[in-house]
């Protein structure tokens, strides 16, 4: 299938600003789905609120545009009721880790089979450029004209600590790598987190004098390095990219099925016990 078969063409051109990295992530995600040959009728995308969340309107999958930060909660509901579906949950940095921080860590802890994509542009773009928990120390934003004093989360370490069984990072510039990682994340059975660094030339770029989309992508290229590469060894200040964790762990829906089975067996046994007692009562009347 062509890429155009996976989108709702009537909503294009999309609403993101020129050069927004979210479009590149959409592009990469569509190609990952296409290369994997997934049936679009078996894919559900849930998203929250923000620039990033608008992505669910553009894809021709089943889609839920839900509450701010609650994309993972809705996805959990969908997955538990229909475990055979593939869940894709793209979220912005604020959506995933500020408003939805609790949903994020608990979805990771449960290891429920879905793919959380953190489209990290380090700012709240849609509401006018407020700093987010991923902006980092010393950055400028509409709400931090004299720079931020908040430290940022490390999405990768946070996800690992919370128990995600697949954790990876890439950038909008490294689109081939993103496609490859997204494919592996979707294939992975369990909670997968893929952080993709994105550019917001309109707010983050302008406020922090990082230039236009092109120079922000050059920045992504120059400040990151592949895990295990010589460049990273030489300069540990570079942001590592690649797959950090990929382990097999008990998946939530499968564990839930086991509980259902156990409960059914227990209730069956109870019923048998009850019948036996009643029968015993009848056959041995008290004198």
């Amino acid at each position, binding site marked *: 299938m062509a*890429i*155009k078969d996976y*989108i709702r063409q009537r909503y*294009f*051109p*999309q609403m*993101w*600003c*020129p*050069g*927004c*990295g*979210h*479009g*590149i992530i*959409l*592009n*990469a995600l*569509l*190609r990952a789905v296409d290369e994997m040959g997934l049936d679009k009728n078996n894919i559900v995308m849930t998203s929250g609120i923000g620039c990033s969340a608008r992505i669910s309107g553009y894809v021709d999958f089943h889609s839920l545009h839900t509450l701010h930060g609650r994309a993972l909660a809705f996805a959990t509901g969908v997955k538990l009721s229909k475990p055979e579906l593939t869940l894709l949950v793209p979220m912005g940095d604020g959506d995933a880790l500020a408003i939805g921080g609790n949903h994020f860590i608990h979805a990771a802890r449960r290891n429920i089979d879905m793919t959380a994509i953190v489209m990290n542009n380090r700012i709240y773009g849609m509401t006018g450029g407020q700093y987010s928990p991923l902006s980092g120390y010393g950055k400028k934003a509409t709400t931090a004209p004299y720079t931020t004093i908040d430290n940022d989360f490390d999405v990768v370490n946070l996800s690992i600590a919370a128990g995600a069984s697949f954790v990876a990072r890439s950038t*909008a*510039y*490294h*689109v*081939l*790598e993103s*496609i490859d990682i997204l494919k592996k994340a979707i294939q992975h059975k369990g909670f997968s987190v893929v952080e993709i660094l994105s550019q917001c030339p309109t707010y983050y770029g302008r406020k922090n004098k990082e230039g*236009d*989309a*092109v120079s922000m*992508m050059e920045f992504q*290229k*120059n400040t*990151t*390095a*592949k895990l295990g590469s010589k*460049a990273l060894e030489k300069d540990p200040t570079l942001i590592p990219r690649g797959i950090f964790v990929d382990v097999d762990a008990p998946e939530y829906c499968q564990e839930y099925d086991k509980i259902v089975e156990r409960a059914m067996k227990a209730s069956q046994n109870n019923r048998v016990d009850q019948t036996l007692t009643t029968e015993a009562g009848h056959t041995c009347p008290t004198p």
Partner: protein
Amino acid sequence: MARLKLKEHVINRDWCKGCGICVHFCPKKVLELDSQEKVIAVRPEDCICCKLCELRCPDLAIEVVTIQTNQEAQTDQTTRMSEDD
């Protein structure tokens, strides 16, 4: 070795926002922005069909249509340029 040959660059001018990402990162400088700030292929003969412009376009506005020069089956990956740093 089987090679992909360019047929044409299909550019959707309604979707292109002229961000210039494809123009800047094209390894052969095939693309340029025109007076209306929409991308055009000015040197299609230099195109090596790496399709990085297509993959990096945030607006899904460019498609590199290719034909195979011989019958050997070939995946896109083999001709893709390396994006490594």
